[in-house]
């Protein structure tokens, strides 16, 4: 075990604080600026302010702020895990960091092939961002993934990547892929091309949103039930929703933890499969060899 220098310790504490601080900030922002509703109600992200822009106003909402907070928190978590990383010397956090990197690289290699090994950071980033955004609802904050705009942004990114890798075998090859197996199916092919990002976005968003809607409905039902059963108790005892203590936690176990993590995994998995499926290495190599041949002849 090497001696820990003061600088190392200071950096350690700084990174840990910066990991936790955004989450605390988010809770404080929510408590201060988001008006609390007296009843139980289902609403979207709270809009902090509208900025006037030429085409349409730019809306800064809770979902955006929270997703930025998650990003900052994740960045410093990564810095904390890789702080003081060295060859051979295995601190606990280095083992964790190496395990994460190795797992993701193996996953990418298994699903996308050797050509796409460089995609591991992207896939890991999407997975971590999605998982931590969904887990945010455990702290009582608005999970960014239950806002369609955030998830649609990621899906659009994946769509651009899919198109890029289809274009890599040449624009003509890309256009020709729409006319397969028969040319008159082209409209359907175009629809299915556009449906990919839409279905990805709606799948993630719908899963997280349905969880939060059902949680709210159950909470409202339990509150009504307590009022019905224990309403005769005097004073605040009659007002206090006893049944709402503890029981929704079991639902939260499924809807927040399991569903959120599963959706993060599925989103990353679909990203890998779609991008991997958009690119055929044989066509690419054939095209490259053709190019080299034409160059050498001229």
């Amino acid at each position: 075990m090497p001696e820990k220098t003061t600088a190392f310790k200071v950096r350690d504490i700084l990174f840990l604080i910066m990991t936790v601080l955004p989450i605390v900030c988010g809770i404080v922002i929510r408590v201060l600026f988001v008006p609390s509703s007296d009843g139980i109600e289902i609403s979207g992200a709270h809009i902090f302010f509208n900025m006037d822009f030429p085409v349409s106003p730019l809306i800064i909402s809770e979902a955006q702020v929270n997703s930025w907070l998650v990003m900052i928190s994740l960045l410093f978590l990564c810095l904390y895990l890789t702080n003081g990383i060295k060859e051979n010397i295995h601190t606990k956090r280095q083992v964790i960091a190496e395990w994460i990197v190795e797992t993701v690289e193996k996953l990418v290699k298994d699903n996308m092939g050797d050509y796409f090994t460089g995609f591991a950071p992207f896939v890991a980033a999407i997975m971590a961002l999605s998982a931590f955004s969904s887990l945010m609802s455990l702290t009582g904050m608005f999970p960014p993934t239950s806002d369609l705009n955030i998830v649609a942004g990621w899906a659009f990114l994946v769509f651009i990547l899919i198109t890029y890798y289809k274009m890599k075998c040449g624009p003509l090859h890309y256009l020709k892929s729409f006319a397969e197996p028969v040319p008159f199916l082209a409209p359907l092919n175009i629809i299915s091309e556009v449906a990919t990002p839409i279905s990805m976005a709606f799948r993630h968003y719908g899963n997280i949103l349905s969880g939060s809607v059902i949680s709210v409905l159950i909470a409202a039902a339990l509150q009504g039930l307590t009022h019905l059963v224990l309403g005769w108790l005097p004073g605040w005892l009659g007002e206090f929703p006893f049944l709402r203590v503890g029981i929704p936690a079991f639902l939260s176990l499924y809807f927040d933890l399991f569903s959120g993590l599963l959706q993060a995994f599925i989103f990353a998995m679909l990203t890998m499969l779609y991008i991997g499926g958009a690119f055929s290495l044989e066509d690419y190599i054939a095209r490259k060899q053709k190019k080299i041949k034409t160059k050498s002849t001229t």
Partner: protein
Amino acid sequence: MLELAIGIMLGLCALGAGCAMIAGIGPGIGEGNAVAKACEAIGRQPESRSAVTTTMLMGCAVAETTGLYALVIAILLIFVAPGRFVDILLAAIK
């Protein structure tokens, strides 16, 4: 008269949301089939458990998509559409 119109509108929105969720039947049956087959596969080859589970979860997620489209439409019909429609109605009357 205006109350009646708004009432019919809200009622139809709720009815439409209910009808949209009939789509929940399809993913239910599909995912049930997928899980049943996965159980059979694991029973036959217990050592392939992790691979089968991963593939099954992926398939379930893809099968769920149609149900989630219906859910999104139902949520839009309940929370977004009534306000829009009432606004349109009021604007038409003015």
